């Protein structure tokens, strides 16, 4: 049987650059469009096509109904064809501006990229953007295909001008291989066959290029890395660590380390279904048996003992944001890196990167399809290499903790050494000791609700009563904090998140001091209330939802804020222009409509009593 190798590439281009036509042409010339598919295509081309009586290959590829109806490509699609020596997997990515995330997705698994340019239009902003993302994702081989040469009378000068433009533009992007060639996907010139329309061009055809690009990565030459996916323990006599080798080669007898624990052992067996191997390399899915009884769990990494990865809980990374809700620094999410899943947050956006001009500008949040240089803080140290050095171990995805959506992709630049050198101070007098001397159990009463719902009134009543009973308390009022600690924050989503993070941290310090803390804060987002809850110990966070209907709050309008907001004088006012997400399971809900403040306060004190606070 013919042994083939495998090349994964993506195609990118703007709308109407002829991407679908090119892929249709590649499949057609590779004889991979079957007769029954061709008959369907001919029928649909007449009915829906945009090529007159000709075949509209886009219809062959746009698989979703919405795409066929709107005549646009929405989602990344994967196509397959093969030659005598090579199998190709093509990631076909849409050219629309709003679907940049799909391009990054397609590029993530590709070894090479074919960038299409319309000969009539030359380089477009999209060409620059696509080239930048291709470079960002670490793709080393690029083919610039100047398409629709048939529409410019196969003019050599047109091609030469675009080629020269592109070579000048792409020089700083550092591609290892860059081919430029003229083609007509529609007519087939310089795709598989040379055709006879461009005798002036002596270079390789597109297929020549695609067959010549070195397949596979150079990962085998890097130090050994393997994230442990699954621990195989069929019986007491066998314990194997299963995973895919991301980089390097491995032989029986090699020394490997677990960077997170520092343990070291030797490879005893590389076990497979078809018998033991002596050697394995990047790309192999293996099951390793070690010589020593060391404890390794899913998520940890096995690495060459003499060339270990970085181990750090803070690093700098480029993040491509992929969700409609913006990235807000300080908001917790989950990070999947290798087989490891860890809670993490973007602690700071250093700048965002304009993908058209490559300019770096200051930013406090990242919107869908924006790319930013960020500091990332994980809840514990993780093992990694910079993406530029090792594509396999320097990448991660970010996952929203509530919707579980994949919200971002990250490429690690370097560890933040600062973090590795800042160690926590051990305390001798601790939280329990401070609470004991006051004879109370500290906790946080977190009042959340709309402006004017009665949070501060309730907090005040409760504190007065606690004080009368000899309890040590403190009130953290959102409005008051904004005069001091949070003076530099506004009311954008990003600032609201930071406002709550600071308040929660102060509340935590007060609990450490042994106090009963009453926080009165609109705190409109579930995510941040959850963050506050998670900062504190079990049972220390008591969420009180002051549930007063918006109409009533607005009718009261104690501070005249609703009136101003309705006039547009206060932007982002919660309940008017900005959303309020009610708690799903608060410890207590006070009906602000049907309950007097005194009744409400009594219920809160009752709750404290039953919870032993």
């Amino acid at each position: 049987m013919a042994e083939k190798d495998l090349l994964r590439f993506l195609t990118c281009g703007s709308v109407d650059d002829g991407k679908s036509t090119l892929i249709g042409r590649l499949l057609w010339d590779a004889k991979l469009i079957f007769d029954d598919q061709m008959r369907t295509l001919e029928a649909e081309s007449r009915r829906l096509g945009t090529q007159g009586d000709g075949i509209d290959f886009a219809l062959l590829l746009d698989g979703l109904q919405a795409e066929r109806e709107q005549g646009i490509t929405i989602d990344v699609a994967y196509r397959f064809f093969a030659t005598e020596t090579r199998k190709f997997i093509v990631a076909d990515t849409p050219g629309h501006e709003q679907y940049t995330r799909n391009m990054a997705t397609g590029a993530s698994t590709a070894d090479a990229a074919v960038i299409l340019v319309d000969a009539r239009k030359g380089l477009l902003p999209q060409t620059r953007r696509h080239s930048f993302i291709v470079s960002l994702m670490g793709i080393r081989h690029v083919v610039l295909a100047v398409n629709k040469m048939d529409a410019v009378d196969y003019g050599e000068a047109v091609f030469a001008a675009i080629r020269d433009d592109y070579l000048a533009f792409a020089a700083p992007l550092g591609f290892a291989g860059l081919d430029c060639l003229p083609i007509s996907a529609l007519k087939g010139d310089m795709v598989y066959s040379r055709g006879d329309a461009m005798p002036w061009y002596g270079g390789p055809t597109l297929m020549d290029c695609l067959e010549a690009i070195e397949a596979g990565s150079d990962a085998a030459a890097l130090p050994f890395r393997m994230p442990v996916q699954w621990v195989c323990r069929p019986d007491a006599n066998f314990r194997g660590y299963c995973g895919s080798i991301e980089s390097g080669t491995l032989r029986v007898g090699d020394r490997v380390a677990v960077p997170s624990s520092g343990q070291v052992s030797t490879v005893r067996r590389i076990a497979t279904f078809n018998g033991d191997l002596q050697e394995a390399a990047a790309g192999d899915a293996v099951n390793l048996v070690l010589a020593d009884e060391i404890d390794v769990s899913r998520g940890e990494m096995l690495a060459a003992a003499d060339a270990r990865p970085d181990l750090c809980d803070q690093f700098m990374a480029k993040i491509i944001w992929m969700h409609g809700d913006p990235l807000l620094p300080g908001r917790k999410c989950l990070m999947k890196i290798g087989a490891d899943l860890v809670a993490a947050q973007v602690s700071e956006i250093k700048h965002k990167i304009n993908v058209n001009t490559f300019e770096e500008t200051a930013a406090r949040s990242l919107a869908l399809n924006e790319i930013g240089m960020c500091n990332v803080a994980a809840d514990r140290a993780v093992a990694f290499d910079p993406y530029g050095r090792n594509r396999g171990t320097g990448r991660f995805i970010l996952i929203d903790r509530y919707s579980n959506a994949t919200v971002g992709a990250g490429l690690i630049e370097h560890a933040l050494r600062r973090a590795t050198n800042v160690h926590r101070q051990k305390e001798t007098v601790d939280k329990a000791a401070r609470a004991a001397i006051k004879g109370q159990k500290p906790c946080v009463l977190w009042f959340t609700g709309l402006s004017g719902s009665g949070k501060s009134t309730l907090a005040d009543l409760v504190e007065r009563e606690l004080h009368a009973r000899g309890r040590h308390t403190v009130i953290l009022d959102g409005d008051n904090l904004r005069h001091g600690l949070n003076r530099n924050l506004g009311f954008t989503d990003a600032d609201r998140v930071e406002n709550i993070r600071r308040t929660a941290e102060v509340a935590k310090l007060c609990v450490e001091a042994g106090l009963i803390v009453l926080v009165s804060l609109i705190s409109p987002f579930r995510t941040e209330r959850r963050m506050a809850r998670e900062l504190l110990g079990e049972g220390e966070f008591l969420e009180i939802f002051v549930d007063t209907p918006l109409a009533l709050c607005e009718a009261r309008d104690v501070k005249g804020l609703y009136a101003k907001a309705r006039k547009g004088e206060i932007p982002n006012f919660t309940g008017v222009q900005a959303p309020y997400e009610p708690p799903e399971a608060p410890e207590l809900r006070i009906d602000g409509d049907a309950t007097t403040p005194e009744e409400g306060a009594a219920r809160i004190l009752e709750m404290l009593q039953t919870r032993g606070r």
Partner: protein
Amino acid sequence: MNGASLSHLHQLEAESIHIMREVAASFENPVMLYSIGKDSSVMLHLARKAFFPAPPPFPFLHVDTTWKFKEMIAFRDRMAAECGLRLLVHINRDGLKRGIDPFVHGSALHTDVMKTEALKQALDKYKFDAAFGGARRDEEKSRAKERIFSFRTANHRWDPKTQRPELWNLYNTRINPGESIRVFPLSNWTELDIWQYILQESIPIVPLYFAAVRPVVERNGMLILADDDRLPLAPGEKPMMKMVRFRTLGCYPLTAAIESDAATLPEIVAEMQRARTSERQGRLIDHDQAGSMEKKKQEGYF
């Protein structure tokens, strides 16, 4: 073999094994859909490799429409015994009671009740949170756009417009209670890859894939095997004896045979390389309406 020159089958195998291990490690209660066809046979083989020397750490589910070829059922039971599989067979009893018959009620209703509904029943009954399917992206246009880890709502629905981006080999396995993920470890395989791999690894498959003289009738230009006496015959009609084989296997009334002399794996691979029609040509269900696969998938079909 080293990293730079891995053959394409070796790379596809490694990718599939990676996907299977990720599921086994991340989900509470995964299951592998086992439809007895060639793709399922490859999936089963890969699962045995992925967890070796342990057995696959999940059960295998066959949704039996009661209209499968007899040889498929015999093969299923033999493989389950030989490989020591935890095999679950689910039949939509309600559909059976209603007497759903593809010859009488048509392929659409039959597929909806005995396959899609039955599958949802089984997933709900056992509360599986991840289910492997053998679908490949080269099979059909909407499949080409589906993720390897394909999210399903608590009602088993697929929403092609809100698919999660899928980068590198970092699969997002997170779901909320009641939701589930369909996982397609063979996404990047083509039909030819499947056959070449079956040949390379000597994977057992249902004998119907090999050409033999079999009794068939012609219906709308399709050759249908007379597998049992539920096949309605016109007065005086007798099945013809023809040298045929199957490129794809499903319910016998809905799966057409092709005339072929390919009786060995090398002959099948050679025939594949000359093929001028697509594999799903022989599947009646796909012809019901335009975009029918996408619609079925949204409703919970695999």
